[in-house]
């Protein structure tokens, strides 16, 4: 068996094995469906509630995407601005690094007080928590630019802006995309938590409502949809990275 084939078969076999074991355990010990529904129960719930799931996935995805895009614009923008002034950078950067350490999800109720229980608060939360990894990685990328390249362009009498546009910005793309990947997962988390706390729409709302009704199969079906969206979103960022790489001719 070639190594590449094995790398594809082994994980698939492992995942299928876990699912089969789960199904067998539920069937053998007759766990109540409330506690642990079998994978087949979850698939059934997925099919029965397909309409509701898609309906609730739309607002979740909308708020996540909008928050992520806004966080990208703000993060890249602020990092770029700060890269022009050492003094401002020294004043602002440590504060943002410190904020990076605190559990930001816990601030969700504060944003709901400020922005109400509608979609604006969910958008704000997604933006807020996705902003930090994007900003910090962009900042790291701009600082990691090869010094000799920067000096070379300065000695070729390039203006600060031209050096930024032609040297520093392109050089920071690898860093930026590692931040974007973290930001993409965090944006989903932010929206879901906000939907847990106060919402009448979205997958987070559906999950919490099903928990109150003890419909565990529907919770897990909603989570399956959410995983699909999350992985798809991550894949999109990954594809974006590949496109930028190709465009830069690497």
């Amino acid at each position, binding site marked *: 068996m070639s190594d590449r084939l094995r790398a594809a078969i082994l*994980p698939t076999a492992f995942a299928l094995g876990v699912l089969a074991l789960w199904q067998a355990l539920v069937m053998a010990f007759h766990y109540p469906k409330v506690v642990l529904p079998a994978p087949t129960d979850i698939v059934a719930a997925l099919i029965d509630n397909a309409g509701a799931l898609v309906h609730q996935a739309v607002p979740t995805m909308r708020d996540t995407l909008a928050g992520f895009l806004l966080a990208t614009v703000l993060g890249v923008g602020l990092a770029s601005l700060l890269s022009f002034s050492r003094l401002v950078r020294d*004043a602002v950067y440590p504060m943002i690094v410190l904020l990076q350490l*605190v559990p930001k999800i816990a601030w969700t109720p504060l944003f709901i007080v400020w922005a109400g229980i509608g979609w604006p608060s969910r958008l704000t939360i997604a933006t807020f928590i996705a902003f930090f990894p994007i900003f910090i990685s962009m900042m790291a990328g701009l600082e990691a630019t090869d010094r000799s390249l920067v000096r070379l362009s300065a000695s070729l009498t390039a203006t600060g802006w031209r050096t930024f546009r032609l040297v520093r910005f392109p050089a920071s793309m690898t860093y930026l995309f590692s931040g974007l990947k973290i930001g993409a997962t965090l944006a989903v988390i932010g929206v879901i938590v906000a939907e847990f706390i106060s919402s009448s729409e979205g997958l987070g709302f559906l999950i919490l409502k099903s*928990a109150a009704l003890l419909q565990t199969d529907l919770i897990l079906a909603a*989570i399956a949809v959410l995983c699909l969206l999350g992985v798809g979103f991550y894949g999109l960022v990954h594809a974006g990275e590949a496109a930028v790489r190709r465009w830069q001719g690497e």
Partner: protein
Amino acid sequence: MAGRMTVDVRTAARQLVPPAIGVAMLLGLWSALAASGLVKPRLLPSPNKVWQTLERSIGLLLEQATPTFLAAIAGIAAAALLGIALGIAVSASRRLMQAIYPTIVFFQLIPKVALAPVFLIWFGHGMAANVIFSIFIAFFPVLVATIAGLQATPPTYERLGESLMMPRLRIFFGVKLPFALPHIFSGLRIGVTFAVIGVVLGEFITAQAGLGYIILFSANNFETALLLAAIALLCVVGVLLFGFFLALEAVVLRVYDSR
């Protein structure tokens, strides 16, 4: 000597003064905004008001911070043990790793917080459920970092150890673990913030005790000053735990360096 000291003072000043000015400006802006009357005090109380609330309610806040703090410590401690142990076990065999690693990456990507209500169905609405959920979400970054770290040893070092006929256990502790430690600690740093998030999220949903409960309760009652005071205390909890792991990292890496 004197010259070096002035340089030290100057670098320290350069590192401390701008951020201090930044914080002062932020607090000033916040005070001005609160005093101007543009924003309702119900939405944004002045820093002074928040400080007074913090002083007045410190007893209550500390009482509620205790379960949050303890649950987060239990969460990260168990997640660290499990994550490092499983990471070592998975790394022992190449095939095992090939089979399991993609599943781990998948779990790393999905929004695990969405599973919180399921944990509450499984483990009840007490502190135990919060701790277990906290372990669950803090575990993955530690596991992934341990696996990545154990792969970070340059192959020539391993081959050198083998050709010196070192036993596998000695290669592990003497060669592979030192290379893995910085990775493991970076995983622990992510894990510790996740552990706090897990506990607070559990408290949001069960709403019985803890700082998460206070935050949600004061948000529902528009007691924004108490809300901000509770968030400030939670930040202290987060930074304390983070600081502990930073210190542990410094100590462990120094011990390994001196050997």
